[in-house]
């Protein structure tokens, strides 16, 4: 719940930043005394582009919302990846042994992962090392940017996601 609220706040400040950037871009054009008329056809950029009133800027509100979901998904993926990396713990290979395995769980920022790693002695002090990790990436975001009033109530952009991500690793290990 805490991370959820924090992401909401992050997306809100992102939206503010985007709006502020749009204003700074538009201001010099407005200030120019030049009588050049720009063809005010926002549909040039796509069907969903509309003028921001008082500016020469075309904006696509649904694209802003889509970007927020894209960024939120990437941020939970990064946390899941961190948990996955932490779950891959290399086992050790004591004398008189040829195989070693390790199974670990790891959690980070509300995401969970399970890693399975193994060592196999090839010859002498040379060992083959391999590992695989599975992470359950999940999250949810309610966008603060768009609200649409319908006959049933207020339509709110809200999306969830929940997927397994896999990570693999192979290598060699030599000790002396």
């Amino acid at each position: 719940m805490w991370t959820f609220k924090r992401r909401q706040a992050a997306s809100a400040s992102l939206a503010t930043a985007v709006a502020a950037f749009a204003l700074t871009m538009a201001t010099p054009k407005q200030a120019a005394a030049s009588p050049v008329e720009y063809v005010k056809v926002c549909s040039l950029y796509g069907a969903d582009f509309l003028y921001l009133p008082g500016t020469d800027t075309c904006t696509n509100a649904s694209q802003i919302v889509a970007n927020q979901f894209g960024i939120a998904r990437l941020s939970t993926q990064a946390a899941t990846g961190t948990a996955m990396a932490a779950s891959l713990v290399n086992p050790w290979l004591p004398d008189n042994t040829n195989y070693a395995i390790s199974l670990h769980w790891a959690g980070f920022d509300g995401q969970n992962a399970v890693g399975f790693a193994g060592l196999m002695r090839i010859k002498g002090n040379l060992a083959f090392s391999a590992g695989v990790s599975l992470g359950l990436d999940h999250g949810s975001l309610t966008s603060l940017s768009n609200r649409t009033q319908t006959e049933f109530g207020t339509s709110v952009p809200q999306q969830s996601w929940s997927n397994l991500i896999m990570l693999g690793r192979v290598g060699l290990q030599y000790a002396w």
Partner: protein
Amino acid sequence: MTISIVGSTPRWVARAAAITAAGLPLSTISVLAADFPVQPRPPIIERPLWTGFYIGVQGGGGWASSRLVDPYFDISFTAVDIRSSGWEAGAQVGANWQFGNMVVGGELDALGASIKGSALNLDGAGGPVASGVSQDYRALATGTGRVGYAWGSYLGYIKAGVAWANIDSQSGVGAVGPGFPIDVDHQRTGLTAGGGLEMALIGNLSARLEYNFIYFGTSSINLGSHLPVNVDHQIHLATLGLNWRFSE
């Protein structure tokens, strides 16, 4: 002079001692001969019943419940519960290692399925709102680890792991009329847990009864328009299976 050779002494030491002893009086030699280490016969280890690889087939019934939440009110303005039921059948491959009564192993399962359900006349179904949604679970796969307890010819076990599904979702828009004109095929990945009871039959065959729960967390899919709806899936499977164990 006293020479003693214990059982763990390497054979060459014993031989060297015997050669050295050849020069000694007869009485000493006879004492040594009695103490020569006897190479122990390797014990016959009986292969545990469940150890080894196995393949098999399975089939059974499936029941699923799915909750659809549409924050855009594109399809429905209240949450929609879709209950599905049907059958599934497939194959499995796995391996077990038995230590005393304890059995650990892993298994891969692939199932073809037809677990169908729908919800019709959704709330707010007026104008461009959907007349209904339907779901069909067409394929399932799981990869699980197993821990079991063996007694007699029985093996009771619990299992947990990861799951994959191919789910076909359809929605019908009211304005278009009856039927489901919009068809979306999507893949989900999630978690699974379950348990079962396996019984060894004649030869290398064994039969099993198993229950599995599969969960796919809430995730957005596009259904009917570019505005996604949030859907989760809970699937219960009850299967009967037949396995063939490979013995060395």
